[in-house]
């Protein structure tokens, strides 16, 4: 279909030349990771440590009548047992209210159950013993008496009038007049533009469809793990793998009733998170075990525990209605969705409402979302939380519309593309965005002209994510030999240390090999918000740039001192201070300035603590070709191309990697992955054998077109990259299969039996 250069391209709209950013150096943490030296969550031990083990509920919904720990405590080698009773009480009103609510009351109950268990795998107690084997035996000796309740396993059941209620007293928010009756529906979120009824009256063509997706897990390969030590003076050290050491510190403090200053959280290398490690599960429990035993405690989850009790993201149900004129102009859109929140309220349904129609210029829309609790694990963030399900519905409906209009699906999207000045579904007018540029790149891509054979189909879909900024801190320290350390507070989940080093290199004007970036613990750098929301390269990058500029300012002062000239006579060029007043002073390199730093005022460093604003929204468009086997219903992905406006690719290889990885996760979501529960609510597929994430032989090469429409809110034009790539694939795959099969596949995953049944039904 074309050569490597034609298939994988960078299209630069900035017209700016950079020296360092945009190059592809080997990542600074690379050698440790290819030799097995890198220390992940479970790779750390402490002298004299105990091994912790969780006791988990076998029931999806039950009251805890009693917990008897006596037998476990009697077992030789058992040093501590904790249950919910050992944790401080938290006020129900203690929460951070956002689109996705963070309730510490719920979080504490999710970490360890109190009076009720809400899902299969819910933690009810924990033990610590001198070996993992003893801990496991002790866990089996803890006797929990349950009163088993009827579980509510899916949206339809949960929303029934007389459904068993998970949380007594929980009523539906966002509905007027406020209902008084307890319900499993936690919230209604609504977003509207214009007048949707009037819009549909103008429509000449209307399509309406019903769509659903299943619960899926982030599927990081590294299971959750931590080691916690708590000394007699109350000072604690938490070593763990997470998407934010400051989050770990704050959550442990909150859930264990401690001060932040008493907890040092050290970030391990993180073996994948995708949003699933933005919350804690083990750390507070290990803390309480460490407190009771007086010894460090290590806890490592098994894969079974990860699947049953962490993540996942919401399964969802959506109805999407689109109205258009005969020429394809969209005139109205309605989206109504229900998302599973899991055991506690807080699904990302509102974010789904805000993102579904975002790629299109539509003036009359109504999006309604219902947040519904069910007896499944509490949903955690997963890459562009909420957006993929909404995009699946809207992009499938767009494909139906294209078919009904007899229009090319790409041209339909081009005709209606949101551009600068278009009002987003959440009201705000877009600034400079690259949505149309993506679609044009798709139009020109060799993928689009590959002829399709029998049983083959091509699907197109777009996706959107806001991207966020937020609080980030950075320090740039100049060593006495002129090399540089860049310190930030954000765990590096996919190569961000490389981009931090590159941005510092660009400001300082030195080669990236002279810069060592590192991720510091909570006592070595100022507060930084989570690694998530596609914010690190943007926001923490901005902090690094400002810190490097601060260091440059200091070095210019030092040079002025060394030359005995006014500061305004010194400029920074190509990694050196130069004197513009006279040419009698030879330029001073960082090494020259560093060498004399003792005499010019001491050590040199720059720092920046910022709350970064101006995150640039980003769009992606994916093209997928599939072949279906009409005999078995098996789908083969033949070709895949991901196109995305990234603003500016700091390290293009890792930008492409994000696009390819997101696409692969989305393909899994579309074709294979789903939580399968028994009628009683036990999760049946708790391992990678039957929760099947895409493997190497399932996928083709994934072409990438990196579109660079600079974000005016970042000095180098960076937009967030990590979330967008998982938004389009669900519909890109489903649209391809639907076209190949001649029948709309609106319910994921498109497993062979499901496809086969749909083909047979359509005959």
């Amino acid at each position, binding site marked *: 279909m074309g050569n490597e250069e034609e298939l994988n391209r960078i299209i630069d709209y900035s017209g700016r030349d950079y020296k360092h950013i945009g190059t592809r150096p080997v990542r600074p943490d690379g*050698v440790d*990771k290819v030799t097995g030296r890198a220390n992940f969550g479970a790779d750390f031990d402490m002298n004299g440590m105990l091994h912790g083990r969780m006791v988990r509920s076998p029931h999806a919904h039950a009251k805890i009548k009693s917990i008897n720990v006596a037998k476990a405590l009697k077992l030789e080698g058992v040093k501590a047992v904790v249950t919910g009773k050992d944790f401080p009480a938290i006020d129900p009103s203690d929460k951070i209210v956002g689109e996705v609510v963070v309730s510490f009351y719920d979080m504490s109950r999710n970490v360890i159950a109190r009076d009720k268990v809400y899902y299969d795998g819910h933690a009810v107690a924990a033990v610590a013993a001198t070996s993992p084997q003893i801990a496991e035996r002790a866990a089996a000796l803890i006797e929990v008496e349950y009163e088993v309740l009827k579980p509510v396993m899916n949206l339809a059941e949960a929303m029934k009038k007389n459904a068993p209620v998970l949380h007594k007293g929980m009523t539906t928010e966002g509905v007027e007049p406020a209902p008084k009756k307890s319900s499993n529906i936690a919230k209604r979120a609504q977003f509207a533009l214009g007048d949707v009824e009037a819009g549909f009256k103008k429509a000449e063509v209307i399509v309406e469809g019903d769509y659903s997706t299943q619960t899926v897990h982030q599927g990081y*390969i590294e299971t959750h793990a931590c080691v916690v030590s708590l000394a007699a003076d109350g000072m604690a050290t938490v070593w763990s793998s997470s998407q934010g050491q400051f989050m770990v510190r704050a959550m442990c403090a909150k859930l264990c009733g401690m001060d932040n200053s008493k907890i040092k959280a050290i970030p391990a290398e993180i073996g*994948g998170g995708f949003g699933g490690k933005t919350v804690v599960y083990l750390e507070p429990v290990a803390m309480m075990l460490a407190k009771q035993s007086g010894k460090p405690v290590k806890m490592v989850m098994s894969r079974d525990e990860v699947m049953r009790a962490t993540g996942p993201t919401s399964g969802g149900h959506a109805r999407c209605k689109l109205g258009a004129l005969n020429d394809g102009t969209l005139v109205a859109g309605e989206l109504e969705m229900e998302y599973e929140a899991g055991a506690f309220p807080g699904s990302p349904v509102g974010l789904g409402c805000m993102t579904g129609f975002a790629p299109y210029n539509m003036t009359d829309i109504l999006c309604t979302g219902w947040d519904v609790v069910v007896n499944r694990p509490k949903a955690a963030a997963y890459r562009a939380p909420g957006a993929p399900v909404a995009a699946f519905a809207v992009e499938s409906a767009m494909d139906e519309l294209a078919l009904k209009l007899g229009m090319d699906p790409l041209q339909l999207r081009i005709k209606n593309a949101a551009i600068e000045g278009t009002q987003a579904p959440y009201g705000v007018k877009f600034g400079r965005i690259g949505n149309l540029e993506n679609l044009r790149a798709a139009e020109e891509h060799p993928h689009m002209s590959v002829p399709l054979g029998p049983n083959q189909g091509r699907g197109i879909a777009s996706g959107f994510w806001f991207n966020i900024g937020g609080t980030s801190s950075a320090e740039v320290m100049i060593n006495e030999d002129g090399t540089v350390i860049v310190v930030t507070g954000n765990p590096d989940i996919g190569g961000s240390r490389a981009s931090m080093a590159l941005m510092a290199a660009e400001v300082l004007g030195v080669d990236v090999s002279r810069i060592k970036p590192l991720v510091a613990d909570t006592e070595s750098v100022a507060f930084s918000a989570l690694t998530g929301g596609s914010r690190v390269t943007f926001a923490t990058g901005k902090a690094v740039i400002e810190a490097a500029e601060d260091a440059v300012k200091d070095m210019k002062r030092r040079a002025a001192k060394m030359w005995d000239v006014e500061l305004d006579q010194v400029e920074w060029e190509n990694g050196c201070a130069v004197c513009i007043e006279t040419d009698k002073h030879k330029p001073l390199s960082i090494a020259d300035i560093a060498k004399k730093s003792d005499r010019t005022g001491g050590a040199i460093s720059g720092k920046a603590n910022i709350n970064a604003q101006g995150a640039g929204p980003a769009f992606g468009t994916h093209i997928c070709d599939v072949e279906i086997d009409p005999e078995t219903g098996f789908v083969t992905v033949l070709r895949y191309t991901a196109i995305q406006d990234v603003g500016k690719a700091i390290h293009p290889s890792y930008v*492409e*990697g994000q696009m390819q990885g997101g696409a692969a996760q989305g393909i899994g979501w579309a074709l294979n992955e789903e939580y399968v529960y028994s009628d009683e609510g036990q999760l049946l597929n708790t391992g990678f054998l039957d929760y099947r994430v895409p493997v*190497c*032989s399932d996928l083709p090469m994934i072409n990438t077109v990196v579109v660079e429409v600079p974000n005016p809110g970042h000095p180098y034009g960076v937009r967030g990259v990590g979330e967008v790539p998982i938004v389009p694939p669900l519909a890109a795959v489903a649209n391809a299969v639907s076209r190949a099969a001649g029948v709309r596949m609106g319910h994921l995953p498109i497993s062979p039996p499901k496809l086969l049944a749909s083909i047979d039904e359509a005959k």
Partner: protein
Amino acid sequence: MAKHHVTTTINGDRTEFLCDTEQTLLDVLRDELGLTGSKEGCASGDCGACSVTMNGTLVCSCLVLAAEAQDAKFETIEGVASAEELHPIQRHFLQEAALQCGICTPGFIVATKALLEHNPDPTETEARYWLAGNLCRCTGYDKIIKAVMNAAAEMRGA
């Protein structure tokens, strides 16, 4: 219960250890011998993060009982690079940016080394099927396959 005394060879070094009957080779590598380069992603042989070779055959060390290691020869990720330089497979994984979080990387490198010892000139499809037992959730496998194919070419002298 008495522990088993096992004598084995790991990365060319004669190694002795004591283990419980239920301990896996992976448990012993990580917890007793401090070789934490092999990772546990599933403990059921589905993810390949713990890949090692046993007498030249690629295995998941989570599926080998530690007691079975008696008289066997193992190679783990810790034995792939020499003191002076990285193995070409490791170098290509870095050059091609074939890792993001890096947790699956040791397993992929061990599995790739076994592939290229077995078949120095694999097609892309052969490489994909050989590596189908190694899960990566970050990369979508694209850059891993590029690294594998480029390493194979370099090792063949092509």
